[in-house]
């Protein structure tokens, strides 16, 4: 399992868990991001933060700090498997 903040652009996988106590996760759930759903990291901003993710046909941006606790199970067929190098 990889934190969303460590995904590379193009990487995708299944959302394993959200923390409903956090307001970011509540927002994402309202947008229809629920555990088990596939999401893809589509962009990182030029300065490395925030990120843009795609799920259920929509693109949504969120900050790195907000993405740290969102865990992704990178899909087995995803061409990129390694996590983003830690900075």
């Amino acid at each position, binding site marked *: 399992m990889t934190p969303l903040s460590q995904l590379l652009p193009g990487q995708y996988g299944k959302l394993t868990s959200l923390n*409903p106590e956090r307001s970011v996760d509540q927002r994402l759930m*309202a*947008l229809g991001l629920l555990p088990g759903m596939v999401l893809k990291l589509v*962009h990182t901003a030029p300065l490395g933060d925030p990120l843009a993710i795609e799920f259920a046909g*929509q693109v949504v*941006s969120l900050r790195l700090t*907000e993405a740290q606790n969102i865990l992704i199970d990178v899909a087995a067929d995803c061409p990129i498997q390694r996590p983003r190098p830690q900075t």
Partner: protein
Amino acid sequence: MSAAEPGLTVALVGNPNTGKSTLFNALTGLRQRVGNYPGVTVARKSGQCDCGNGTKVELIDLPGLYSLSAASPDEQVVIDALSGHLADDRRPDAVVVVIDATNLLRNLFLASQLSELDLPVVLVLNQADVAVEQGLKIDTELLSRRLGGVPVVMSSAWKGEGISAVRRAIGEALRARVRMPAVEWPPLVEEALADVAAGVAADIGRAPGRADVERLLFDSTTSVGQRLGWVAARRDVVIRAARDKVRRAGYNPLAAEPLIHYERLRKLLEGVVQGGGNRTGGSAAVDQVLLHRVLGPVVFAGIMLGMFAAVFWLAKFPMQWISGGVDALKLVVAPLLDGMPMLQSLVTDGMIGGVGAFLAFLPQILILFLFVGILEDSGYMARAAFIMDRLFSWCGLNGKSFVPLLSGFACAIPGILSTRTIEDPKARLATAFAVPFMSCSARFPVYALMCAVFIGPNYGAGWESVVMVGMHCVGLLFAVPTAFVLTRFVLKVKPQPFVLELPRYQMPKPRDVLLRMWQNAAEFVSRAGTVIFAITIIVWALSYFPRDAAVAERVKAENPSVAEAVVTAKIQAAYVEQSYMGRFGKAIQPAFDPLGFDWKITVGVLASFPAREVIVSTLGVTYSVGKGAEADSKHLQQEMKDARWTEGPRLGTHIFSLAAVLALMVFFALCSQCGPTVATLAQETGGWKWAAISFVYMTGLAWLMAAAVYQTVSRIAPPA
């Protein structure tokens, strides 16, 4: 609030980026009323909508939102409006839910939540043209059947298609009053809801609405409890027990609502939508360029440069026409009032000048909102925020702060008005507070005059540019820490997560953009405009009265053989010196003495409250150069170069020394010496509190920094 006749009201709700405002404009035409909800800075737009068969309703365009769990003031307004808890509004008679036809599932979540409000509902599947392009087939009849027969219509507000079907559907909803069936909660959740309802009823003595009960059970941040007057201590006990029940049903209480609603919707949509594949296709390709690590910022910089150039440079032409028109009007009106000097001055300098003062802002406001409208409606604004966010997030602002701050370098007023694009109330307030620190174009003549008087002649043009650039950085230097402290330590509002949808790109609709420009300009004129007018009149009166004819006689007697123009200028100077403004300036000059300001500069500072650049013409009058002097007046520059202290410890030294010139520029870079800005801040922050804080803080900071500069520089380079 509206009308004596209690007509029907219908609320328009929906997710952001669904074309809701375009639909609103199409349904109501140009006859719209824009106001504010009491106590919050959320715009209230309403208009009349004809639903056929002689039925006319008041249509209210509520702010866009994704969910009823309120986090921002915008969202709170929607919840309060729909449940009839807004002070001046009745509960609407029906709700039109605008839905993006290309993303039914997510958009229906809000509709599903709204079903608990027990109001007749119309579902409008908008942007139908895009859905067709994407190959989506939607069975609206099946959807309507599964939703208990509520009207479901397709429309494309952008193309003006399906508008009359929407009108008919609203009429039908008001007649048949069909509700959308509420979600079926699992038994234990249903029990928990009943427990909360019973708890409320027991404590406040009346049964709460179903929607309120759901907010209490499912939201951690809801303000429904306070609104109902339910004591927090009692509330916590009941809600904790009820949430335990939800947990026993196998749901996290804070996640139960989306999980159960989305589960319901997934079943409901089976067989309703067919086809469609790559839903983000076209936009995704554009984003490969516009969000590219290198190209993205390049395009962004180009767009912003174009916007700034338009606001800063292009607006100058209409501004010149306005000031030319105002001057011409003065020339036409003045002879009509010959023989009545007081009235003549009141009408020309006070009233016409006052109207001109706020009209002069309109070109910049209109041009900026042209850009803001295009950027927002096209979907680029969200990308701009995405690119810039990192630069602002660390000091509590966000990517959307960039446009207001940049336009602040042209003028703070359009800058503050454009903070409306920032959803997060905390970041919005902090940005509005930081905008006046940006060195606006009205400060430019002040810097230019000071450079021409002292820096240029003594150090050359090279240093003049260095000082000019430096002064533009001074404000920025203080704005950033101010925003940081404000968001970190002062504003106690909970920060909002920066979850921002990057919507599909779309061609902006000219009517929507023009309407937005018009509405913002009209609101500025009717709200801040009146205050600006009043300030101009007050400052005029203070500089005009008292007007003892003996003063003019004395000046004439003292200068028997001097040219008439020179005598006129001397008379004007004498009048200002003994006016209330002049007397007040002399009285408080000691407060500005540590900054090296004499009474003439002090009067200039005070008289420039209607607009910063007025200090230049005020100095023109007090230095007997005559009215209407500008920064490039050689006469005024020479008078100022020659000016020396005539009393006190600095006797005989130049007033405009290096220390004084730098102190004056730093003072103007930081002070809040601009009535229109203060009035606009009050308009946009919903009261005078933040405007007053901004004024005191900026002026205090300006005094401190200018005093520090004067005291330091005058020791290193003593005035000669």
